[in-house]
């Protein structure tokens, strides 16, 4: 997974060269990975601008335009496509966020809506053959990628979730301390300390005091692992789906004899069936990411003492 963007310097020739000389299904593994790795389009200063970044910008533009047009007609009863969008928004707010976040729903719902629709539209655009359309129309065959198939993108989203969880938890603790009549600086410091204190479940007596450091270390490790798991779950699901589709389709160039026609038909049928599964996985992974985010924010923000 190293030198992701240096692919074009190495050229594809060395990897496919080795695969072709060995002459069998090494080609499948070699090339199927390649179409989920980011490709550099051009350089901005020292940094590469990859095809996945382009797709993220496209998705951001789509979300801005579509939801702004939807919200502009706010007092009107939604019909048609607006009803479709509003159903999705309603489901995320009432079905996912409100059972967990109860009174804090409206505080976090812009972040949660953005997270859900950003991940969803990125996953779905990975299934649409934008590369082929752009290639046939404009001659550029590697213009679009799948943003969520990159660990950096999902790690950035998980980092946002991590920051939201802990900062909103500390803010709630500070507000709680303010209710006891403490002044602002004292409330901030006390809130910060009480947040760490409330990490650990309360065990009465001497045993609680002795076990507190161990539980604190365990809870801190857990707090680091949860966003890590969020990132890897989304990344691995989407990337593995794309690699599977690529592997099935690349059975044709791997077998160059009389059997190749017969091999392609099950490959195409399998890819069609797997694309339906990938559609389901796109929705499911966006829902799971959002649901777990709501769960973690709810656990940090609601008074659980």
């Amino acid at each position: 997974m190293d030198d992701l963007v240096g692919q074009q310097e190495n050229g594809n020739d060395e990897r496919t060269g080795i695969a072709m000389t060995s002459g069998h299904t090494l080609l499948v593994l070699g090339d199927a990975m390649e179409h989920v790795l980011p490709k550099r389009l051009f350089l901005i200063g020292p940094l590469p601008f990859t095809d996945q970044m382009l797709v993220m910008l496209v998705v951001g533009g789509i979300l801005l335009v579509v939801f702004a047009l939807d919200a502009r007609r706010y007092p009107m009863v939604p019909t048609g496509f607006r009803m479709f969008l509003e159903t999705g928004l309603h489901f995320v707010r009432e079905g996912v966020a409100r059972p967990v976040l109860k009174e804090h729903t409206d505080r976090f719902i812009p972040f949660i809506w953005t997270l859900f629709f950003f991940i969803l539209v990125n996953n779905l655009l990975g299934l649409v053959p934008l590369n082929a359309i752009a290639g046939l129309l404009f001659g550029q065959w590697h213009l679009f990628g799948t943003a969520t198939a990159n660990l950096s993108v999902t790690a950035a989203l998980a980092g946002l979730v991590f920051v939201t969880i802990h900062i909103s938890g500390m803010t709630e603790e500070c507000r709680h301390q303010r209710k006891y009549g403490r002044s602002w600086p004292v409330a901030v410091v006390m809130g910060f300390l009480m947040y760490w204190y409330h990490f650990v479940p309360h065990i009465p007596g001497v045993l609680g005091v002795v076990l507190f450091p161990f539980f604190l270390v365990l809870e801190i490790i857990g707090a680091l692992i949860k966003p890590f798991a969020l990132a890897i779950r989304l990344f691995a699901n989407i990337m593995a789906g794309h690699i599977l589709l690529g592997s099935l389709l690349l059975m044709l160039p791997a077998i160059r004899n009389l059997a190749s026609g017969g091999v392609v038909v099950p490959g195409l049928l399998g890819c069609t069936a797997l694309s339906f599964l990938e559609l389901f996985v796109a929705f499911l992974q966006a829902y799971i990411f959002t649901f777990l985010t709501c769960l973690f924010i709810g656990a940090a923000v609601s008074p659980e003492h």
Partner: protein
Amino acid sequence: MEWEDMVMEIIPMLAEGLSNGGGLGLLGAGLGAGLVTFGGAKGIGQLAASALESQARQPEVAGRVFTSMIIAAALIEGFTFFALIICFQISGKVFSTLAAAGAGH
């Protein structure tokens, strides 16, 4: 005694032959991916079995049971995919080492 000596000679030969073409690394990656699939599928199958049974017993909670089943299945699949990513990385490293060795020669 003689066949024991032969076996004791064959095993290092096998290991050397396997490790020359990156075979041991690929073997590890392949076996790992297969074992992970086995564990994950068994867990999700058990989950689905109990979810279906509870839906059959009490159809009015079928919707909530289905939602919980989907969430639990996605979580189990999550760490199945962790191990799959590790297998991909192992095989990718083996291939890149092979490419470097091949280009170097």
